[in-house]
């Protein structure tokens, strides 16, 4: 059946549709915007599992379409994100955002199905360009530029690592490896940068909230999860990923707890949840890798839903700061329910998809006897409920209204949110659906009495702390300093202090330059005068200059 589809990939459908979109108008444009993701998702499932077709290019065996089970899980997640994102954003007026969002989604599918390092790198770069344009399409040039620069760095690291791998191993095949050489560390660093790994995590919360109400939905789904897939393919069982993932989980928790802006809070939370996946990849057993993939799928579902709810609030009130919101449960009941379901799924409430995937990750840690990481991630999971299940809904949805709701969410937006609610609750109530996607988790106890009770006790315990520590958790206007202070604020502090010194240096340099210029003019005039009289040079002087030139030439040649 692969022959039937030939090289047709879900990526190609989306990227071609994205390129065609600006040529269309009105209903045709919206039709293509919605139809392309649906067709791509259908193709993810129509493609038979297999090694894919190898193409010989410049002596390299490229496999641009390798549909294995992992590709199908991530392809499904990316496909659902693209379909619901397009449905949600169909009323978005920016044609540029729609076109670039499709290209961005296509690049994510390209990474999911890439069977070699060269194809991976090509789609990696398209992903970076597409996502940058989604941010830029909302008019925030500076944030887009910062995002682009950090991803240029990631791309360069990955390219250097891939080049070293090809030079060393002599092939472009994607295979599991350890970070045991400089080249592989470069590759791992490039991938981790895209995953939002600590300490370079700040770009996620810097860039994503700068997108439009609909653009942030696409951004929350693809880049970090595509990086998780590449980690699964290239670095399963890499020990460094255990502590890197844990650092991400703790960072995401602390920064989300402190955050006042809903979309920044959700962005920090992305880093935290990707941290869970990275730890699972670090464990590296078949169960752990399947759990990481399922958590990526569940996370894409509930984070898209949360970003949609946040986008609806932004579109309706022009506001996303918790300190300026409240009482939205009455004025926006549909959005409120969506936010609650998304938040409870992130907090792994039983009967949600997040409960299934997080249980699988903890079961994988238990199976591997990774005691420290099991206890640490369980504690982080309890803490996550504080910001997503309690702080966010409490201050945004309940209490006194502080913002005027000017716009109700459009029907298409409600349809997208409703669809995601079903997709979160369905696998939560019937985990067997997810077990068909990843049979490795079949032995994990999920809907057992002791496991359900365990999770409910954790969540109620966290609720007690929330009520008790209420004054400490009040949202406050402001921002939390991050590592990006080094390149965003530090130069502004240092440059004025050094400006006077720089001015003095500039004056000294200009004086030296003036002296040199005068000296050069005199030398030139003297040389010209003497050259015109070259015939009268003494033989000894000619021999001296010829020897000097020869010596310089020999010296350069020797170097």
């Amino acid at each position: 059946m692969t022959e039937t589809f030939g090289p047709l990939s879900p990526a190609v459908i989306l990227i071609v549709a994205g390129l065609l979109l600006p040529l269309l108008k009105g209903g045709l444009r919206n039709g293509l915007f919605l139809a392309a993701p649906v067709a791509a998702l259908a193709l993810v499932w129509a493609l038979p599992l297999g090694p894919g077709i190898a193409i010989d290019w410049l002596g390299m065996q490229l496999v641009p379409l390798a549909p294995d089970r992992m590709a199908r899980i991530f392809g499904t997640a990316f496909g659902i994100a693209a379909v619901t994102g397009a449905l949600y954003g169909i009323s978005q007026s920016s044609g540029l955002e729609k076109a670039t969002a499709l290209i961005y989604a296509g690049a994510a599918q390209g990474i999911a199905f890439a069977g070699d390092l060269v194809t991976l790198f090509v789609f990696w770069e398209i992903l970076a360009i597409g996502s940058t344009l989604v941010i830029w399409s909302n008019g925030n040039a500076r944030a887009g530029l910062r995002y682009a620069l950090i991803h240029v760095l990631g791309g360069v690291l990955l390219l250097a690592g891939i080049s070293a791998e090809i030079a060393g191993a002599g092939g472009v095949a994607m295979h599991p490896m350890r970070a045991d050489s400089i080249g592989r560390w470069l590759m791992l660093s490039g991938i981790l940068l895209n995953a939002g790994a600590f300490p370079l995590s700040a770009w996620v919360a810097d860039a994503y909230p700068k997108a439009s109400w609909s653009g942030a939905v696409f951004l929350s789904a693809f880049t970090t999860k595509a990086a998780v897939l590449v980690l699964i393919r290239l670095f399963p069982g890499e020990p460094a990923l255990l502590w890197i993932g844990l650092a991400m989980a703790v960072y995401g928790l602390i920064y989300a707890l402190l955050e006042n802006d809903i979309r920044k809070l959700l962005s920090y939370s992305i880093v935290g949840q990707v941290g869970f996946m990275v730890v699972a990849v670090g464990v590296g057993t078949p169960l752990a890798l399947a759990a990481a993939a399922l958590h990526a799928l569940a996370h894409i579902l509930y984070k898209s839903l949360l970003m949609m709810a946040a986008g609806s609030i932004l579109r309706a009130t022009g506001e996303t700061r918790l300190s300026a919101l409240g009482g939205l449960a009455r004025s926006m009941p549909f959005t409120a329910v969506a936010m609650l379901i998304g938040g409870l799924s992130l907090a792994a409430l039983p009967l949600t998809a997040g409960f299934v995937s997080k249980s699988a990750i903890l079961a994988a840690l238990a199976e591997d006897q990774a005691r420290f990481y099991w206890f640490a991630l369980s504690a982080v999971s309890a803490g996550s409920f504080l910001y997503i299940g309690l702080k966010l809904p409490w201050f945004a949805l309940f209490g006194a209204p502080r913002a005027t709701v000017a716009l109700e969410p459009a029907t298409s937006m409600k349809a997208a949110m409703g669809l995601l609610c079903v997709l979160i609750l369905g696998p939560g109530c019937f985990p067997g659906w997810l077990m068909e996607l990843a049979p490795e988790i079949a032995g994990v106890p999920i809907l057992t009495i002791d496991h359900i009770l365990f999770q409910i006790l954790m969540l109620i315990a966290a609720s007690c702390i929330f009520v008790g520590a209420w004054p400490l958790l009040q949202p406050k206007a402001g921002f939390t300093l991050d590592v990006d202070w080094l390149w965003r604020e530090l130069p502004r502090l240092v440059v004025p202090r050094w400006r006077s010194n720089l001015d003095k240096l500039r004056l000294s340099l200009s004086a030296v330059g003036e002296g040199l210029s005068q000296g050069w003019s005199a030398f030139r005039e003297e040389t010209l005068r003497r050259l015109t009289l070259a015939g009268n040079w003494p033989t000894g002087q000619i021999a001296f200059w010829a020897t000097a030139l020869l010596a310089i030439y020999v010296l350069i040649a020797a170097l």
Partner: protein
Amino acid sequence: MTATRLKILLALVALLALLVVADSFVTHHASFGIDGTPGFAAWFGLLGAAAAVVIAYGWGRLMRRPGERVDD
């Protein structure tokens, strides 16, 4: 602490205590021994969430700044 908050807190603590009692009648499938003891999730959840609040509060005191970032 306001009266409403106190009532909510007491209700939650009572519910937690009831569930801990229920937990002692359930067969656990422990992975590390201690996680199979009755009520483990309750005290561990309390500790985990409290630690998160304390660390976040401390980090906020150090790193939280008023206003917007200059280049935002």
